[in-house]
């Protein structure tokens, strides 16, 4: 068990070390400091500016998490409504597609105008960016229920609501989970773009400021913090999805225990 956990962790450390080594090599080959700071100076900045980074990271983290939750709830809600009431499909589906057809980047200035310079507009941006993937993966999952299960439920006298919540929704979970993982990596994009367009706090704001003052090392430090946030969010979501589906055999082969027995 410990060995199986250790091995991927070691691979990750090795891959990171390789990447940092490559980075250091490029610096040693004479890349100018204002374009590519050395890894060591980025680490120094991370430590020295930790209070500043922490302050801005919390703002961005709040926006990402709020956007992720809003987008997830809205997306699942839309998918449930679409599959429960068939007559809504012809009106809601084109609208859903429209939210995806308009690039969020293009309406970012508008969103800042409407929802202000504060976190509101960033939450909306993150929500918009993940709403479609969540709604479509969840809706697809709800539509592709094994017909045999629905037949069985029908002969048992199940109402449409019971079929939806006890059969179709659990059956859609694996599909929804892939949407959630995708959303975990997309939500930070929304928050950062929002901060670039107009804000007074957050990692995106900090990066713009640092860029303007040629503090490339601070920019890299902020980028690393953002990376850590995104990766943590991804693995948290992944973990929660697995916990919500204890029956699902693990594809990576890391978790071979079901009901406390090897399968």
């Amino acid at each position: 068990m410990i060995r199986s956990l250790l091995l991927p962790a070691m691979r990750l450390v090795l891959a990171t070390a390789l990447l940092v080594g490559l980075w250091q090599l490029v610096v040693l080959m004479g890349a100018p400091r204002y374009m590519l700071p050395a890894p060591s100076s980025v680490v120094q900045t991370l430590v020295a500016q930790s209070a500043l980074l922490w302050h801005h990271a919390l703002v961005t983290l709040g926006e990402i998490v709020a956007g992720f939750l809003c987008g997830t709830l809205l997306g699942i809600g839309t998918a449930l409504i679409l599959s429960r009431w068939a007559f809504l499909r012809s009106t809601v589906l084109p609208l859903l597609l429209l939210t995806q057809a308009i690039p969020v980047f293009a309406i970012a200035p508008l969103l800042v105008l409407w929802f202000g310079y504060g976190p509101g507009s960033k939450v909306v941006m993150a929500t918009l960016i993940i709403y479609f993937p969540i709604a479509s993966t969840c809706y697809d999952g709800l539509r592709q229920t094994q017909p045999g299960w629905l037949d069985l439920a029908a002969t048992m006298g199940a109402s449409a609501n019971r079929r939806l919540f006890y059969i179709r929704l659990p059956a859609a979970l694996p599909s929804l989970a892939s949407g959630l993982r995708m959303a975990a990596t997309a939500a930070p994009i929304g928050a950062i773009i929002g901060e670039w367009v107009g804000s007074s706090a957050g990692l995106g704001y900090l990066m713009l400021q640092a860029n303007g003052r040629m503090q490339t090392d601070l920019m890299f430090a902020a980028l690393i913090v953002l990376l850590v946030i995104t990766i943590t969010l991804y693995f948290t979501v992944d973990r929660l999805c697995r916990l919500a589906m204890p029956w699902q055999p693990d594809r990576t082969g890391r978790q071979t225990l079901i009901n406390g027995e090897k399968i």
Partner: protein
Amino acid sequence: MQHSRHKVSTDAHAPGALHVQNARLAFGERVLFDDISLSLPSASWSCLLGRSGCGKSSLLRLMAGLEVSNDAQLTLEDASQRPWRQRIAWMGQQDLLLPWRRVIDNVQLGSTMRGERSDPERAMALLERTGLDWAARRYPQTLSGGERARVALARTLYEQAPLVLMDEPFAALDALTRLDIHERACELLADRMVVMVTHDPIEALRLGDQLLVMRGSPARIEHFAPPEGTPPRHPATDSMSRHHDDLLKALTEQTA
């Protein structure tokens, strides 16, 4: 091991017999069957055979009240005139166990579906009868195909429905597991009225009190005499192989 079944009356007018009348199914211009009628004696096992595409599964779905086609009808009635749709239990082509429900929760699925209180004691008793009480807290995918089929049987029995409709329920199992599940099913469903669609003549000859062969276009139903003896009949007797030959001939013969 032979399990004794109730002596089955072949008199279709015996009390408790169920009548299927005026069954019709068409897809546009293509009429699969029209005006089919058949009787199911109480506590009997009827096997419905026929070439694939003859409409036997559709006939079963119509009996279950499941969606088939816009141009379809069927009347189910017995002497009591009570509605039959709520008194059936369904077993589909796969075991249809829900992977996210533990074995015992799969057995009690009917209660959840109707919004009733579940009866874990009865579910547990049924699992004991199918020899699976040890697996109650497991997830279905940790069980073998034969074990899953037994869970599906327990779920069917939990429904307490007098009419059990089965659409090739054991088709996915290997031959030996199937022989074993036949014996169990025969014992456990002895007091129910069973209609089973099957592709396997041996399965039909082992279990059927009534053998119904569907053929022709539009399809008609022909009665075929079952071998002597009470189900589950031993698969390797002279009588079985004779009937097997006759049944195969009837199934492969083209009708005008």
